[in-house]
């Protein structure tokens, strides 16, 4: 680097780094401080309780179950979303009938690309309203209404989708995946278009079929983008606060039902923070969440590390 360049770069970084320290790092430190107290959230009077909150945390069945739910989201949401998005993106870009002229997408791929992106423009709150209408527990719900019409469900006993312990997590995942696929489809499409055509054409000449060209060419060359998608979807899976709190059975506040079967870390934390007034305890949960996400992001980046192909 040329002389003086570091000073130049540092000059630009000063303000953003200062902002980051004040508004992100300092609150983390504060949170950790509060997590060692019995703070109740509404005033500045509290006393120091050491690690009691953390000890209690590991005996709190609701919180432990919530971690487990986050882990399930963490496994299934990225995997399913990425697989679906990859499949659709491949079909749109390189899945058409192979012709002499080269590689192209299925018929009408331009329209599909736009249509698939629609759900992404909806806010989470609207998504919740929409899927509440889909899962509504009486004949007025989209699913129940349809199933009753075709005689699969008894009108007197409609399925209470979001009130079924074994269904509720999946019902939430469907909503998230439905919304996410379109975005990652566009992301993967863009990446696929930058893969040189001649690689495909060469493969085609060598007699590769669709599967082979996908697994041998497309996927390896997309790996970086998939990795990025994984991290973003990880963020979604670690959060889930909006959908859980506005769609599921109410456990005092912030959803989480039935019987805490859909509680995630963030809903349990907010319930303790505001509704039960156990704010210090909730801060301990926040610290645990931070540690888990840190571990997670390190693991994700390590596990998906691959050799790069330059083109």
């Amino acid at each position: 680097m040329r002389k003086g360049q570091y000073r130049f770069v540092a000059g630009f970084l000063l303000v953003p780094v200062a902002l980051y320290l004040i508004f992100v790092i300092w609150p983390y430190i504060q949170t950790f401080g509060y997590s060692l107290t019995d703070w109740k959230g509404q005033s500045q009077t509290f006393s120091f309780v050491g690690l009691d909150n953390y000890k209690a945390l590991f005996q709190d069945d609701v919180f432990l179950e919530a971690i487990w739910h986050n882990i399930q989201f963490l496994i299934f949401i990225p995997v399913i979303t990425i697989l679906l998005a990859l499949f659709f993106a491949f079909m749109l870009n390189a899945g058409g009938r192979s012709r002499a002229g080269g590689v192209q997408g299925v018929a009408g791929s331009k329209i599909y690309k736009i249509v698939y992106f629609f759900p992404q423009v909806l806010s989470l709150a609207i998504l919740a309203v929409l899927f509440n209408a889909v899962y509504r527990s009486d004949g007025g719900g989209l699913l129940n209404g349809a199933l009753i019409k075709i005689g699969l469900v008894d009108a007197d006993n409609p399925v209470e989708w979001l009130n079924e312990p074994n269904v509720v997590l999946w019902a939430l995942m469907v909503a998230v995946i439905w919304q996410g696929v379109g975005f990652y489809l566009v992301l993967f499409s863009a990446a696929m278009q930058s893969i040189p055509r001649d690689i495909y054409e060469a493969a085609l000449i060598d007699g590769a079929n669709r599967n082979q060209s996908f697994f041998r060419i497309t996927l390896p060359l997309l790996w970086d983008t998939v990795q990025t998608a994984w991290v973003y979807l990880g963020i979604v899976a670690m959060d889930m606060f909006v959908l859980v709190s506005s769609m599921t059975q109410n456990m005092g506040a912030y959803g989480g039902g039935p019987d805490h079967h859909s509680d995630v870390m963030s809903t349990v934390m907010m319930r303790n923070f505001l509704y039960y007034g156990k704010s210090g305890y909730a801060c301990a949960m926040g610290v645990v969440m931070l540690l888990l996400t840190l571990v997670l992001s390190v693991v994700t980046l390590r596990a998906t590390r691959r050799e790069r192909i330059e083109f």
Partner: protein
Amino acid sequence: MGSTAHQGGEGVGRRDLIKRSAALGLVAAPGMSLLSACASGGGGGSNNDEGNTKGKASKDNPFGAKNGSKLDVVVFKGGYGDDYAKAWEADFGKKLGITSTHTGTQEITGKLQPRFNAGNPPDLVDDSGAQQIKIDVLYKNGSLLDLSEVLDAPSVDDPSKKVRDTLIPGTLDPGIQEGKVVALNYIYTVWGLWYSGKLFKEKGWTPPKTWDGFLTICQDAKKQGIGGLAHQGKYPYYINVAIMDMIAKKGGIDAVKAIDNLDPKAFVGSDAAQAGIEAIYEVVEKGLLMPGTNGLTHTESQTRWNQYKAAFITCGSWLENEQLKQTPTDFDMKFLPMPLLSGSKMPFEAIRAGSGEPFIIPAKAANLPGAKEFMRRMLSKEWSTLFAKEANSLTILQDGVDPGVKLRPGTQSTVEASKAAGSNTFRYLYPDWYSEMDTAIQNASNELMAKRIQPKEWLKRCQAAVDKQAKDPASKKNVHS
């Protein structure tokens, strides 16, 4: 994404940068909401400045509210709207020359928690709704003014009486924390079952007084394709109204106190609790619930009931106001006390009744004299009538409405029910004292209504919640006597 990434190891590759920033985002994003909530301001001392807000006290103005001072009023804008508060504020300005800043909101916690923490709360708050700041939490933090000064002041209507003697007996109780009234629960509410007078007339049903009669109507309704009982399943609070009322009426006030006072036999070993929950479970077992009601929100469920899809629904008396737009004009909404099991200790007319919608004065309010005077006037006949007119509900002031105000059928029926009940009213206090125990009981009820647990398991779970709460040393200070 095409060109190079690595050039002799110098500088950071573009892709690496994206990845790293994404990883940072993964760490930061879920934390954000917590952080903004946790990062509280630095305390700050009391900001009531007596010099600015304290005026001269007189007979009409016992607290010395100062002409020309300002009052900061925050009102929960929910089922009752906030027009009533605007009407009060206008009158307050006219009579005392105190201008009010009015905030009508549903986000009480979001707007006020930072202010409480920073030590500059408003002067008067209607701390209600789903996002209220729990009174027990505020009290434990020493943020609430003891209201005894207001309650012992002379009444506006009759200065020879203290304010507290003009109220319906018992209505101050839910605002008591450790023996002090710290919240004024202003609205008088009754809880129980509701039905459509029109539907009942059409079907030839008479409002049942016994549980057997109730079940007979539900069964008849079911035969005609109407649901028996509807409840607002997504919020198990509502079905607990029915369950806990059954227990109270069967076992009398002792059963209520056993639960509030965290008796080791509040649920398991209590005949009343067992009979109550078994009665409700009968409705579930016989398929007399409105189909799907367990998963519906309060508006969805109540609207179905308004469409004659169910014979009964459980609710408090805000129901009529809340369903104003959905209720057909000839619906003829009626209130019904919970029907009786045989051998009940309370009469049929007994109802859960009491005050709700807690108004508080923060201890650190800037204009304490103004806030106290405002609250004193809320308990005058003039303002109580204003409230009834704007919000169509009753207040805790005895005979607090001018007879000239015509009430809607549902509200009228609650007035009659309340008269018939006389002193036979009861009220559970545990939801105000122990949010966590309340949640556990609601959770158990949700499982029972979905038929995933039986009454025996319900009793066990509730008892476990009670026992857990009893271990908290702070709970010894709360006594329902």
